[in-house]
């Protein structure tokens, strides 16, 4: 517990290290941020909004007025920008959890494989081919 606090303090006070969560920096696992307690707190509003997209009526309301919908859930500037840009990596760093982000990307007919492709910096077809090759 003490070491985790030290690492977190060191991480967030070092301007060249972008801390995402406790003991986790952007470069540790490229494209992946373990969803720990710190990230859960950070991303609460964002995940709450994405959870609302389980409902088709809410998805439609979001598309009618994105700014108003995001404001309703109290997204911070980082989260609002990531949503605006449909940027999966930025959404993850802003505390988004993939189970809820999948409901946001579903609005744009993007699936979890599209998320994976963004995380690995590949096209969807290249990502699917990589999965297939790994299974052989």
């Amino acid at each position: 517990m003490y070491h985790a606090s030290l690492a977190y303090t060191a991480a967030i006070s070092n301007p060249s290290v972008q801390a995402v969560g406790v003991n986790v920096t952007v470069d540790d696992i490229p494209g992946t941020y373990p969803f720990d307690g710190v990230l859960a707190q950070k991303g609460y509003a964002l995940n709450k909004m994405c959870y609302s997209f389980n409902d088709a009526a809410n998805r439609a309301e979001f598309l009618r007025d994105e700014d108003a919908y995001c404001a309703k859930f109290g997204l911070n500037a980082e989260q609002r920008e990531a949503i605006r840009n449909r940027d999966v990596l930025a959404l993850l760093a802003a505390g988004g959890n993939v189970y809820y982000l999948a409901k946001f990307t579903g609005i744009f007919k993007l699936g979890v494989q599209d998320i994976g492709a963004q995380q690995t910096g590949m096209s969807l077809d290249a990502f699917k081919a990589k999965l297939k090759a790994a299974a052989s």
Partner: protein
Amino acid sequence: MAKLVGGICTSHIPAIGNAIARGLEDDPYWQPFFAGYPPVREWLERVQPDVAVIVYNDHGLNFFLDNLPTFAIGAAPEYQNADEGWGCPRSRPTRAIRRFPST
């Protein structure tokens, strides 16, 4: 005393539901995956289990982070798949999972 006749497992990524909804089971990308299902159906047909205990991931449908049990046991007489956030079509009523009314 109950007799365990077997266990079945499958990957449950949302892409699978999407593939089923769009009829892509015979698509070259999906065919090797869905080829695993018919033998399981044949086994179920042969074995005719009395009870199936289904364990699955909520996928952020019923529980949000503010109210998230490690596991929960469903007690409703019937269940149906959910929208999942991308308009997954609801299964026909005959395919809904039914719970036996008595213990």
